[in-house]
């Protein structure tokens, strides 16, 4: 560690990284749409971050960071898809999804905070299913095994929990416009 003030390049890179953090959940969602495997998606996420850092200089502050990072994430995802044979949607469909006009949201911190408070409102079983799925990266058959119930009931629990969380966050956002 040194206490020297950062060079303008370092400051710029830090700013770009800061923007990345702001968009991180949106980027993650975008990658997961193409690569539903959490660990592969995590790797792609990390590569995207590294690319963003490496190419930070080429990003002009003031232009759309969302569009820039989306392009990088998309490129990295397709690279991963081509490199490994695993199940995902066809390239044609991924292309159509990529062409769909949809802006990345930058309100991640707020939504994550609301999401945390909504998670605490979930019933214990639903909460546990969500934790198993998202925190421990278990798939429904493993969750069913751990919870002593059927895969079908895990699917129902997960979908209801997701719908509840979505509605809960949306409700809190509209009640609390910032």
């Amino acid at each position, binding site marked *: 560690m040194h206490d020297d003030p950062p060079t303008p390049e370092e400051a710029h890179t830090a700013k770009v*990284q800061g923007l990345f953090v702001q968009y991180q959940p*949106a980027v993650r969602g975008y990658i997961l749409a193409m690569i*539903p495997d959490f660990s592969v998606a995590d790797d792609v996420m990390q590569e995207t971050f590294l690319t963003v850092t490496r190419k930070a200089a080429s990003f002009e502050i003031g232009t759309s960071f969302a569009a820039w990072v989306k392009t990088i994430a998309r490129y990295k995802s397709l690279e991963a898809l081509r490199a490994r044979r695993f*199940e995902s949607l066809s390239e044609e469909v991924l292309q159509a999804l990529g062409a769909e006009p*949809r802006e990345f949201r930058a309100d991640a911190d707020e939504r*994550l905070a609301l999401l945390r408070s909504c998670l605490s409102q979930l019933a214990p079983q639903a*909460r546990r299913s969500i934790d198993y799925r*998202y925190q421990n990266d278990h*798939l429904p058959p493993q969750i069913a095994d*751990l919870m002593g119930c059927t895969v079908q009931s895990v699917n129902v629990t997960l979908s209801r929990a997701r719908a509840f969380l979505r509605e809960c966050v949306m409700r809190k956002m509209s009640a609390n416009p910032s």
Partner: protein
Amino acid sequence: MFDEARLDRLISAHFDRELTEEERRELEAMLLSSSKARQLFLEHSEWHGLLREQALQAGGASLLEDTAPSPPARKVIPFSRRAWISAGLAACLALGWWLVPSKEQPGTGTDIASKADSHSHEVALLDQAFDVEWDSTAYAPGEALPKGFIKIRKGTLQLDFYSGARVVLEGPATLELLSPNLARLDNGKLTAKVPPPAEGFTVINAKMRVVDRGTEFGMSVTNADDCEVHVFDGEVELQGEVPEATARELFEGHAVSIRHGKSEAFPASREAFTDPSRLMQETARVNEAQRGDWQTASQAFSTTPDLQIHFDFEGLDRTSMILTNRAAGAAGNSHGTIIGCETLSGRWDRKGALGFAKTSDRVRFRAEGVTPSVTLMAWVRVDSLPLEHNALLSMAPEQIGEIHWKLDRDGRMLLGLRAEPEHAYPSWERLESPPVVTPQDFGRWLHLATVIDGDTGMMRHYMNGSEVAAGSMTRKVPIQLGLANLGNFDASSPTSPTNGMVRNFNGRIDEFALLTRALTAEEIAAAMR
């Protein structure tokens, strides 16, 4: 247009990696044909990403709390976290979060389901409980246990899982029953004895699955990061987040401790766990002490004023068929006659009881006189309530003043006192309790009492010493004692419409008393103890 609910399901299946080839094609066709479908898909993916992000941050956050705080200038913390994690600390991701559900109130999800439909969620039977202080819903030995939490502050429980595995749980402990074959130990100690049909019985903790491949193991969990497994007999398999150097298969005589991601092998120690045979001895000792107390109380009770009939079902002699009436000053002809019935054990191992099962099973006895008031009390163990009416006692059929005491199919206590000669419904004074004997009570000993108070014109039902129903009589009818059937019902007259009706009791009785006065609530509570 597309079916939105269907699309929703397919999108979820895509994110949970459950799509079949056919479903994938269906999803792709929907996505290609509609911009709205694509928007929905992208919206789902946003939420999916948000949930995953939240989960990673929650895992990372607790990771950071355990180390030196990072300087705030390092805004890009999530990735330094990621780097650590991929550097081999993946196991720590789970740190903390597994504990979250256990912080919630026990049974918030399960209690709602209990009584009403918990029957289908039952996974084990509580066989024994010693010296237990409950921290969740309390259960009594003999009770079926639904899925959900068992929390005890102290004491020892013996649980028989429906798979055949027997688990001894030592408090303080928190065990979540997940299925007949699976339980989660959040903290505490247990030993599991797993006979061959139950092989594969699994206990999980925060990170690991302990799968039985043999016959007996012990497990001790202090918290998410501290667990010991001892194998007493046979073999267990460790699955899940087990430190790399740890043997995945553990054999008889071996034990392993896993603390903060490090494992250590050492010899298994039987002494560290409750020995089931010691538990048996303890059971026997407690049983014997309780039986002794009961004997003293029962002898004292025999001299209670106005006690006409007191059967304690002790010293049953099958050759004589006689059930002795222990009431002090009992008339010589007031002993009971046992018809059918099996001689079984009662509330305690060496306490006598009669089992009622066949339609013929009953104890016949005669009580004398006409009385304005009566109290009926019995210790019963209901095994099932298969009939519309399951008779506890029927007396003096076909006469005004006759009594029918029974449980209905839904576990209500019913009393009928005939006030008119006709057989019609309004000819009876009745008292019906709400359902008090639920399927969860089957196999447990219950104290049932009913009082008809001729002075106040009230009828009352009690279960386990507490009043569960009360009602006033519109007609004051003297009670006609006479020939009675305990655990059954018969119509003496062949012309009676009730002739041939089947109302036999299914369960055990190990004490019965009939008094010709109305006991107070306090007296009933005292008799129950």
